[in-house]
């Protein structure tokens, strides 16, 4: 019988190796984003951006795309048949395990406690965000993450309360996948694995490296770590019950809707 490895280093490198092999089979150029504004008139145009109170107005002259229909996100999915089967499995897992667990959790646990748990788990993940901010040269972001950790760990009672956000110290949510993107690594193929959220090959490698930066992995045995991850997923699912239901009701093709939504959000995260 195969048992899960208890050595966190071995565990993480097994995942890295698997995803790197997948990435080597077909890396694609980084998905290019499209301009947010695509006026129907082409040539040079002036973009005027102002804040809500009109106090900060910036004007820049750019040449914009003339094709109103262009600018679609590149969705590189050469493994769609495999991904589709994995997606169906994960969807069944969500329907029969995560959603019922999330619903029960939502009924039993007050919203404030759910948010506090989310805050605490996020606080523990500071090393990942700090290191990736530094690797991307975002020193301001790194300073904010460190400051948030100190504030939330102390005044926020071990991270239960996001005191830093109230003080105007915003998070800089960087991860290894975004770091790789900043370094010019292409997204690679879209990838769906059982029990995991959607990934690209690049983000999969990043995900494995992020696990190496998670301090819990070094102090908790595999079973406890798995329980924490499962608990995190249930809590997150509980916080998004209605969003998921509405998203599902609004789609014609769930697979492509989830793929596109994931890729768009990642593109935005890399840009920020």
């Amino acid at each position, binding site marked *: 019988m195969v048992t899960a490895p208890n050595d966190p280093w071995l565990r993480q490198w097994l995942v890295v190796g698997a995803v790197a092999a997948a990435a080597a089979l077909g890396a694609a150029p980084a998905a290019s984003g499209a301009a*947010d504004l695509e006026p129907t*008139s082409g040539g040079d145009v002036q973009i005027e951006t102002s804040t809500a109170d009109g106090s900060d107005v910036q004007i820049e002259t750019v040449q914009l795309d003339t094709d109103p229909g262009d600018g679609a996100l590149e969705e590189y999915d050469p493994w769609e048949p495999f991904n589709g089967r994995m997606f169906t499995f994960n969807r069944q897992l969500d329907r029969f395990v995560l959603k019922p667990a999330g619903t029960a959790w939502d009924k039993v646990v007050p919203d404030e406690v759910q948010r506090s748990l989310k805050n605490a788990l996020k606080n523990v993940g500071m090393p990942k965000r700090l290191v990736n901010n530094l690797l991307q040269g975002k020193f301001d972001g790194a300073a904010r993450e460190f400051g948030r950790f100190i504030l939330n760990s102390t005044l926020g009672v071990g991270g239960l309360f996001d005191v830093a956000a109230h003080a105007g110290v915003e998070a800089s949510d960087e991860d290894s996948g975004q770091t790789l993107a900043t370094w010019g690594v292409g997204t690679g193929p879209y990838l769906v694995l059982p029990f995991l959220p959607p990934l690209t090959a690049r983000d999969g490698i990043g995900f494995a490296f992020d696990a190496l930066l998670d301090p819990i992995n070094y102090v908790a045995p595999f079973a406890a770590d798995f329980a924490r991850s499962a608990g995190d997923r249930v809590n997150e699912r509980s*916080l998004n019950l209605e969003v998921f239901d509405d998203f599902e009701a*609004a789609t014609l093709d769930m697979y492509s809707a989830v793929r*596109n*939504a994931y890729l768009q*959000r990642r593109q*935005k995260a890399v840009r920020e």
Partner: protein
Amino acid sequence: MRRGAFIGLVMLGFLGHLWLASPASAGPRERVSEIVGSVSAVLRDPALQDTGRHLERQARVRAIIDEGFDFEVMGQQALGGRWQALTPAQRDEFVGLFAELFKRSYTRLVLRFLGERTTSYLTESVAGDRAAVETILEGGKDGRLPVGYRLADKDGRWQVVDVVIDGVSLARNYRAQFERVVRTSSYETLLRQMRGNAP
């Protein structure tokens, strides 16, 4: 004579005020604020809070969306390159089905999220006949939710042509779905699914 001139001046001033205050001259941010404000007013109307009046609340929100969104431009964006191959009658059919699909979905989202949250306006960007207004929805379980509105100037009036929720453009998301359905089945299957999604 002097009385007539005076009355004429007053009328001119009154009509000028109406013209300046008319929706046709509202900028992108004002337009979004108008739409969001109208929806919020419906959601917070004490007379419509009763569970039995849910359908009426829904109908009013749909009417506001109908008036504030340009579904022809949205539909064209969502269908992508295939739009050029359609006849005018087919385009009308598609736009009609798309409008119904979007209104059902977006009304549901709006009813669930807009009422219990406040909207803060961040920036407005204008480039020719297109604009982007960035907002933040605050409150609720998930804290802050960035929502962006993309608008197009149609005959002097700004209309919403896309909504970007936390980085996800609804028009692009629909486009990905429609492309896959057409690729794996056919355009006729897409229309059938859009009709089949109707209540």
